[in-house]
């Protein structure tokens, strides 16, 4: 495909040669023609045997929504009409800057006065075995689309490596074309460069609902196949069959030609504000350039660059100043938008709106009264408005309260005062959509004495379900009562309007499965919670989904993440479990050896009848644990919101007063209940007689043995507020004592609030309630016990053993070491 008008005799115009017939190269020529159509004689070289088309519309072509002809920007007539020579399908292979010529692979040489490099970018191919097998392709040009369409015709399985913009669009297209698609993404959330965690989670849900399999945190080990691709193997051993593999993990500026020609190249071809490279006769534009340290992989910056380039070519320089970019995912029916900087940080305020029933998540990031970023999911209608405000750096302080509701609310003549807006509503206006509560009903409830949010939720149910109308209800309260509003229920933290009990109830009722899901469905006002709510949510989910929920380590307090207690100097203390307070020479030797080997400065006998080794460095923890494991010891969970110790006295085996085998029972109970995560720490003791040497009546669960059986005590505490236990009941056998203990622990696990010890919990719910659930309800007790033992079947893996074997070693080892002296030497 060549249009080679002969150079007209006497055409003395400068010759502009463009390498690249893509979006940047052609747009630059269009901009130039718009300014001065006669100034340059133009020749364009393109690697593909095609006219100029809109590359970003390849996804709709793949999806069957458009044809190739629909996405052509400039057809052959355009080249002819503007006297442009197009050399398509014969790429430029070399630039000779001294001679000012370019030479194609086919051997054609053309001289230039000005050269424009617009080579775009190359897909990044991850260097795994099998990457060159037939059937492994990138998603970059029309040929790739043709390959995908041919594969889709044959049907079968496709794997897309990369859950970014391009990968998801490829997956969507292949899925629509009938292939069974699996997306493999290295990062924990999709499109992490454009979307925050919450929006990424929503996107994953939506794509999975459409039948795609999305594997996040999945690392490709190799592509397998004999003569052609047959599947993808992950580093965790998972094998996914595939007759087509699309690599869409990223792009790299295409700089080989420029580098070979000796131009200055960093991550891209380096250009100044006028898109001029280190050689004044050579310009560059588009994805192949690096401007002010930035490279761009989106289309919008290219338009800005081309304008500046053309201004420079006609000697009316303006200068490019970099671009702020926005992203939209082209997957029909899924609306995703992001723009600017959404990483938060100092002085940034997040305004978050979540509407669970509509699947909407909107987040606008404001700094110094100006929008700096936006992430929208589900409702992107206002994306362009936010982006406009962002680019213009407009002061949004006047719009602040209504900004998140979008342009029509914020600037469309609506009342700027939310309270006034509520006042203006008619009595039959619906306030709470979930429960169908009108303004009139809310106001009449308030008149009848419901003077707090909690009271309203309890009576007319306004805002009691999804909570998205909480603000409206609060405004109604304020409007009706003025200063008489009683403060609402204590919320979990500032991230939510819900209390602990509400959140827990909804997690179970709506079968929620992850922290981002809870935050979305319950309208969290922060993107990823805080150090109060994250550990609580992690626990509630862990408790609700034993064996199923994947613990989020980053939502754990340091001690639980490190499986040791942090001390004020940053070292850790280590407490191995000593069952019922019993030990033996082998364990004692192992502890003594650890103390010497790791120079632990102190060993102390704890109040819980075991030994605490102090001053262990973070890096040494796995080695310490390995040594202790070797002597048969496991973690004592002295650091956890979990079972700490079972303290015992010597009991009937040795003591002249002992009535039962308290030591043996203590060991059995500790074996049953160790490893269980709880709302707070939990201590047990078993005393062999009413002299109570094990101090069982200040423990969370205490057993006092008597001649006729076992007294069971609950809710004791020896801390700041000393509280003696309440007597739960008396049982006759050791087995009953254990069964009641298991049931009590499970009731506490399921119903106490995170960080609530048993003592305040029992004071809150009353000991009679606990008696009714445990002592007076045999079926309920048995069900609780069974749930506890089921949960325990997943929790009794020694975390130390896992770490000692190398699990999560990044928690322990420094990322790098740096010795300044060596460096300066």
């Amino acid at each position: 495909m060549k249009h080679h008008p002969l150079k007209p005799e006497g055409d003395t115009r400068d010759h502009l040669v463009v390498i690249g017939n893509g979006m940047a190269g052609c747009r630059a020529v269009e901009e130039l023609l718009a300014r001065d159509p006669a100034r340059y004689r133009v020749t364009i070289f393109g690697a593909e045997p095609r006219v100029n088309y809109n590359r970003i519309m390849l996804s709709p072509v793949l999806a069957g929504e458009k044809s190739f002809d629909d996405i052509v920007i400039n057809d052959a007539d355009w080249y002819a009409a503007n006297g442009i020579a197009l050399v398509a399908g014969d790429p430029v292979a070399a630039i000779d800057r001294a001679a000012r010529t370019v030479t194609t692979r086919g051997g054609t040489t053309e001289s230039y006065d000005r050269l424009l490099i617009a080579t775009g970018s190359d897909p990044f191919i991850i260097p795994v075995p099998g990457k060159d097998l037939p059937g492994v392709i990138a998603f970059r040009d029309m040929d790739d689309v043709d390959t995908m369409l041919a594969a889709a015709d044959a049907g079968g399985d496709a794997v897309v490596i990369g859950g970014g913009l391009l990968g998801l669009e490829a997956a969507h297209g292949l899925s629509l074309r009938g292939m069974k698609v699996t997306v493999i993404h290295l990062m924990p959330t999709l499109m992490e460069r454009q979307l925050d965690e919450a929006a990424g989670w929503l996107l994953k849900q939506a794509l999975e609902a459409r039948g795609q399999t999305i594997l996040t945190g999945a690392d490709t080990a190799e592509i397998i196949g004999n003569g052609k691709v047959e599947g993808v193997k992950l580093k965790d051993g998972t094998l996914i069959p595939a007759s087509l593999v699309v690599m869409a993990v990223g792009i790299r500026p295409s700089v080989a030609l420029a580098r070979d020609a000796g131009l200055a190249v960093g991550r891209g071809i380096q250009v100044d504000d006028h898109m001029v490279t280190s050689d004044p006769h050579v310009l560059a534009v588009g994805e192949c350039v690096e401007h002010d340290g930035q490279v761009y992989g989106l289309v919008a910056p290219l338009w800005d660059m081309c304008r500046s380039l053309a201004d420079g070519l006609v000697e009316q320089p303006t200068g490019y100043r970099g671009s702020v970019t926005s992203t939209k995912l082209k997957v029909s029916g899924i609306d995703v938008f992001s723009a600017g900087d959404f990483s938060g940080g100092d002085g940034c305020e997040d305004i978050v709106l979540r509407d669970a029933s509509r699947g909407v998540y909107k987040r606008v990031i404001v700094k110094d009264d100006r929008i700096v970023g936006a992430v929208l999911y589900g409702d992107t209608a206002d994306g362009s408005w936010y982006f406009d405000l962002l680019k213009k750096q407009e002061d949004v302080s006047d719009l602040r309260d209504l900004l998140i509701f979008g342009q029509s609310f914020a600037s469309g003549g609506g009342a700027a005062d939310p309270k006034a807006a509520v006042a203006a509503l008619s009595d039959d206006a619906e306030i709470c959509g979930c429960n169908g509560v009108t303004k009139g009903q809310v106001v009449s409830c308030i008149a009848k004495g419901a003077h707090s949010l909690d009271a309203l939720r309890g009576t007319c149910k306004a805002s009691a379900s999804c909570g998205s109308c909480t603000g409206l209800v609060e405004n109604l309260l304020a409007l009706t009562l003025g200063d008489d509003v009683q403060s609402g229920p204590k919320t979990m933290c500032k991230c939510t309007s819900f209390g602990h009990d509400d959140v827990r109830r909804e997690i179970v009722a709506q079968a929620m499965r992850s922290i981002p899901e809870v935050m979305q469905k319950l309208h969290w006002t922060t993107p990823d919670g805080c150090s109060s709510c994250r550990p609580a949510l992690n626990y509630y989910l862990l408790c609700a989904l034993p064996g199923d929920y994947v613990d989020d380590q980053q939502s754990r307090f340091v001690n639980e993440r490190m499986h040791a207690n942090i001390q004020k100097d940053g070292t850790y203390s280590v407490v191995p479990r000593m069952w019922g307070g019993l030990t033996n020479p082998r364990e004692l030797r192992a502890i003594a050896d650890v103390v010497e080997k790791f120079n632990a400065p102190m060993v102390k006998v704890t109040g819980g009848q075991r030994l605490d080794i102090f001053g262990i460095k973070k890096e040494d923890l796995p080695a310490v644990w390995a040594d202790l494991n070797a002597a048969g010891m496991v973690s004592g969970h002295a650091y956890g919101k979990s079972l700490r110790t079972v303290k015992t006295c010597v009991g009937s085996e040795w003591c002249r007063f002992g009535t039962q085998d308290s030591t043996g029972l203590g060991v059995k109970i500790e074996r049953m209940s160790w490893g269980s995560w709880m709302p707070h720490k939990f201590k047990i003791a078993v005393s062999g007689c009413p002299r109570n040497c094990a101090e069982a009546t200040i423990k969370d669960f205490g057993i006092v043995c008597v001649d006729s059986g076992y007294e069971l005590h609950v809710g004791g505490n020896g801390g700041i507020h000393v509280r003696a236990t309440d007597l739960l009941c008396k049982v006759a056998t050791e087995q009953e004592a254990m069964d009641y203990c298991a049931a009590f622990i499970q009731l506490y696990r399921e119903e106490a609030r995170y960080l609530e010890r048993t003592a305040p919990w029992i004071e809150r719910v009353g000991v009679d309630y606990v008696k009714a659930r445990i002592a007076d309800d045999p079926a309920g007790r048995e069900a609780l016990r069974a749930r506890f033992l089921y949960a325990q079947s997943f929790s009794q893996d020694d975390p130390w053993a896992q770490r000692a074997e190398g699990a999560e070693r990044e928690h322990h080892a420094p990322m790098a070491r740096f010795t300044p002296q060596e460096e300066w030497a």
Partner: protein
Amino acid sequence: MTGDWLDIGWVDEIPVRGSRTVQVAGGDDIAVFRTAEGKVFALRDRCPHKHGRLSQGIVHGGAVACPLHNWRISLSTGEALGEDKGCTPTVPVKIDAGRVLICRASTLKAAA
């Protein structure tokens, strides 16, 4: 490790909403954080309050909660947030082709 920037490893080596440390011989560690959005920050690994190891705290939004007394420290400025007052030195970070680079001069100053 030469030039004005220290190459300390791959971005992926830092857990999302987590942190790793860089040991500096003869000085305090540098804590390197990665937020949910993938931004990377570096601070001296000491809380301005009682010198708690910030690298061991819970990262949320653009802040970390110190594990000792739950002070919230801004990752971008090192300033204590809310009612608390204090500041821990920050170290400029840049990401190049997936590698994390921290400013050498600031590292030495922060670790000293």
